């Protein structure tokens, strides 16, 4: 599993795009409040708990699994 890319100067660095969250980690992640599985929204870089109605942000590839940092889902979302 790698998030690295080699640019034209030959130096290895994190991808210029949003760093990908670790796929294997996603498999075991649950909502800290409800312990239910999460939906991964790769475009928004969010992990969504339908049961808790919260979207946990992924910042720089790091899932922030804190309810205080999560966004409340809007109606119909």
């Amino acid at each position, binding site marked *: *599993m*790698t998030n690295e890319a080699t640019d034209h100067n030959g130096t290895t660095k994190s991808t210029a795009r949003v760093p990908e969250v*670790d796929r*294997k*980690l996603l498999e*075991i*992640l*649950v*909502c*800290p*409040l409800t*312990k239910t*599985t999460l939906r991964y929204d790769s475009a928004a870089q969010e992990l969504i708990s339908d049961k808790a109605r919260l979207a*946990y942000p992924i*910042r*720089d590839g*790091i*899932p*922030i*699994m*804190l309810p*205080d*940092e999560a966004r409340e889902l809007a109606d119909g979302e």
Partner: protein
Amino acid sequence: MSEEKSHQGLVVDQFGAQAHAYLTSEVHARGEDLVQIAGLIARARPARVLDMGCGAGHASFAAAPHAGEVTAFDLSSEMLAVVSQAAAGRGFSNVKTEAGSALDLPFADKSFDAVISRYSAHHWGDIAKGVSEAARVLKPGGVAAFADVIAPVSTVCDTFMQAIEILRDTSHVRDDSRAQWEAHARAAGLTVTGVTEYRLPLDFTSWIGRMRTPPVFVAAIRQLQDSVSSDVRRYFEIRPDGSFTLDMMVMELAKEG
């Protein structure tokens, strides 16, 4: 600054700003306890390890050479940024970071083959809850190691220690005793497979420096150190410059398969 502060907020404020100090701290980067944790992981060869309250990641780095993957888990994103950078610097591509609370782990039941935690539990507010969360995410047959400062058996020494700890760091909650830890393990359904106690000498200047303890609290700690009985002073080996020695413990546990 808000007058009303959550405990989590205190912890994040306290550690985020000082993340690098923990990466380089001798107390945190070295220690026989770290060697013991590495030994446990080397014997277990777990596919997946969780480091609860990883701080600057020293326990994660001790485990990384012997594990498939290590999840370095902490409340503070700033701390995790330091961990990611240090992991890359040491060539550990199997250390992944994730932010969250040890008391509400965002992992499915039976997700990990090993759980480790070092110098974190005294910030948790409810150590029993943290240990039960560790037991929940452990697979049957999995192993765990908790390393932390422990309260002395003597009540007056216990009170003195918690007092100077909270003066030094307002996010301190409590160093539980070995007996309390054993009770937490039993309540969580984990078997204690070994307890090793260590004496941990602390240099006063760097001990308060890591926490940026305000001068008024530093003065209060020194005053307390000078005012307690000679029994307490002897127990903690308090020296003229305020340096002293604490007890710490590594508790090894297993979840029956």
